[in-house]
Structures are given as C-alpha cells and as structure tokens.
C-alpha cells in the first residue's frame, strides 16, 4: 500500500491485528509469522542472481503465519478472515511437512 494515508495504514494494521488476535483467541495460532518486503534477490542455478521476484512472476509472497488446525479445511476457515483478501491478495494454505 504505497499511497496509504497514516489513517488508512492504521486501519489496515488494526485489521491484521484483529485477525491474528481472533486466531489466537481460538488457541489456534502457531506463530504470528512475518511480513516480507516485496522485493529481494532470486538465486538460480548456475550462479545467476536477479532482482525479484516481481520481475519474473506476477505474484509475490507478502508474508506468512503458522496456525494450529486439525485439518486443511479448518486452516482454510481461519484463512478466510485474512485482511489481504480485501485488497486483491490471495491466501495459500499448506500443511507443514515436518522434517
């Protein structure tokens, strides 16, 4: 949100905090996780390093959170409240495959 006003930023932060707080209130928060800056570096085979990932693909990962759920469906339910959905984002839900 590059052009957001301080009020809009604050409202957005509140939506995120309320969402995470709601998951925590169900005792289903594993780790709040982090946001990711939109750009960084991409390392490819053959020692090729590019800026990215936005230059290569249309979508970039904006952040991650870890939730505790009994099923993929339950986790998907939690993801439905993600404020990112309201500004064109999507949420991918994956199970962690423990090493």
């Amino acid at each position, binding site marked *: 949100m590059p052009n957001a006003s301080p009020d809009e930023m604050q409202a957005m932060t*509140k939506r995120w*905090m*309320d969402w*995470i*707080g*709601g998951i*925590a*209130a*169900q*005792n289903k*928060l594993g780790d*709040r996780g982090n946001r990711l800056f939109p750009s960084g570096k991409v390392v490819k085979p053959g020692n090729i390093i590019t800026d990215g990932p936005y230059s290569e693909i249309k979508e970039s990962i904006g952040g991650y959170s870890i939730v505790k759920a009994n099923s993929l469906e339950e986790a998907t339910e939690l993801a439905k409240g993600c404020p990112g959905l309201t500004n064109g984002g999507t949420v991918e839900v994956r199970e962690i495959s423990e090493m």
Partner: protein
Amino acid sequence: MKQTELIPHLFRTEYRKIVSVLYKLFGIEHIEIAEDIASDTFLLASELWGLKGLPENPTAWLYTVAKNKTKDYLKHNSIFTQKISKEIKYSAATFHEIEIDLSTQNINDSQLAMIFAVCHPCNPAEAQIGLALNLLCGFSATEIAKAFLTNKEVIYKRLQRAKEKLRTEKIKIEQPGLSELNERLPAVLLTLYLLFNEGYYSSNQDVSLRKDLCLEAMRLTYLLIENNYTNKPAVNALFSLMCFHSSRFEARINEEGGAILYEDQDANLWDKELIKKGEYYLNLSSKGDELSKYHLEAAIAYWHTHKEDTKQKWENILQLYNQLLQIEYSPIAALNRTFALAKANGKKDAITEAEKLNLTDNHLYYSLLGNLYTDVDNAKALEYYQKALSLTNSNSDKVTIGKNMEEVMSKLLESTKRGKPAISPSVKQQITRNPV
C-alpha cells in the same frame, strides 16, 4: 498499640524477617530449627512482656533474643554444629564467632534469597504458593487452608512434601547468579502473580484474609523492585498490575464478601493513590525492550481505571488482548478479548468471533454470548444465560446471571406487549420460570 495487639502485629512483621535470616544461615536442610528458634523467641516475648511489661524497643528485644537463642542452640548442639558448620554461610572459625546479622540489608537479602528457593520450579505452582505463604509470610497451615478453602491436613501434607522436595533437590538459599537470573525470575513472578490472584479472584468470603494475600504478594514483589539486581521491567509491570487491581479492592466487594461487577462499581471508592502508583510503575516497566504478559495485563488494567466507555479505551484494550493472546492463550483472555471486540468493532463482529471460541464447558462463555445477543436477539440471549446458569456452581455468578436474565426478560415482555414478533413457546416457558 496495646500489648495484646502488639505481639500479633510484631509476629506478622518481624517473624518472617528473623526466620528468613535464620533459614539462610542454617540452609534448607534445617528450616525447622530456624522456625523453632523464631517461634520460641515470640513465645518468650508473650510470657515475659505480660509479666514485666513491654521492653523499650520491642523489635530490638526480639532480635537480641533470637540471636542469643541461635547462639545457645549452636553451643548446645555440638553434633549439629559439627555437621552443619561447613554449610554455615558465615565462615566463622567457631560457633562463638558466628554473627547473626539482623540488619535491614541482610534481612532483605535473606528474604530475596528465600523467594528464589521457595519459587523453585521443582515444586508445582500450587505448592510454591503454599510455601511462600508459610515460609515467607509466616502463615500457618490453618490460615493457608482457610485461604484455599480446604482442610488443614491437605495443606500440611502439601507443605511437608514441598519442603522435602527442596531438601532432596538440595536447593540453595541464595540469589541466583546473573546468568541464571533471567531463567529463574519468570517462575518467581508467576508464583507472586498467582498468590495475588488467589486473594483477588477467590470466592472466599473472608475479605480481610483475601486482602492479606494480595498485600503479601505486593510486599514480596516490592522486595524484588527494591533490589537493583532483580529490579527488571517485568517486575515493575507485575507490581503495576497489582496496584491497579487492588485500587478496586474496596469497590468490587460488597458487605457480604460477594463480587460487585465493574459496571456497577462506585468509581469514587477506587483508591487514587494506588492508581497513581500503578501508573508510576507502568512507566518504569517500559524501560527496556521486554514485553511480558504482565506489561499487557497492567496496560489493560490501566485502561480499566478509566470508567468512561470511550471508543479509544476499548480499541486499546482490544489491541492489548490481541497481543496478550499471542504471548499466552487463556480462555478468560479469549472471552475478555471478544467483549472488547464488541465494544470496539460492534456486536455483529463479536458474535461471529465468539461463536468460534468453542468454550462450551465454560459458563462465562455462555454469559458472554448472552451479553452479546442482548438487544440483537433477546430470545437467544435468554437461552444462553440459561445455559450459563446451568453450568456454574458459584453463587455470586448465579446472582449476576439472574440479574442479566431479568433484564433480558423484561425486554422480551416489552416487545411482546408492543406486538413485536412473537416469542417461541420454549422461551415463554423460561420467562415464567424464576431464574434464581
């Protein structure tokens, strides 16, 4: 102060000081000896002062007698002395040279060292609280049993087991080293927090006993603040939380020892001095980059010292609960967070969130739903209150729920009178039934 009042008073204030110094001197192996010497000192005081009148400085008298009794003990128990002389912290060549140091500094240091020994995680939390009351505050097993609403035997056994555990684990009565402090302090703070809550939230009708528990918890927390070494941000936050909570002590308990809900409290009865103190220590707690659950709970308690229902207040409380739940989940925090959500974001949001909480064995969960559905769907609100009532054993909770039900019922009757949507037969039946 009359002599009949003076001895119990001195027993409360001086016994624990004398005994702490002796505990530290003798070590955890021999806490009974320390207790015997301290008790004998007070026994002698009550005999002699009755006959001869009060000494000029009763406290100094007690200290002198305790010192002499300790020296006598060591002299007459040479076997004991040989056995423990190595353990005696004061490295005197012979027991004649052992100095029993009852200076304020050593009393404080000894009490602090004892706090760490008593709050050692080798004992379960419940036992730690009992030990703290017994060893640090001079409460008898009978008094502790009263506070915990249980019988003396249970407490006696619990204390014996806990003391034995300290012995077998060879817990030293000393302040932990700097590197160990950060590891040990959380357990100490948790015990003091639980001790305070035991007094503050107990359903015990003995109000003065409950107040004593809160005061003792505050006194021990303050000991940690007074010492530079343990004066950490989280300690200040905990003390601030205790100040804010106890500022409402008088206002939240009625004459029968029952609870008065926050909304119904007379804010004039809130202790302004304690609120100021709470603010002072909350400020101090913000030094450093640590954010403990005590910080968040103290900040929530701070907002509750503002009685006005402003949007800003509830928004702040909501965000604090959001953070608190991320640090540590508890059902009560989840319920309170949802209540704040209703105040900050509206009931619609809060109902959606409340229904996800799934705390179906908790009467407070149904009370919350009853509250949220009031004026939204009064028939549903009534059903939830009914459910809450069936799940609680606490009399004061029953009274509160009953009041809420009456309010909802009058709203329902009002709307039927005005020809608003008819209510279902099952609800009608509930209305005619007396709730409490």
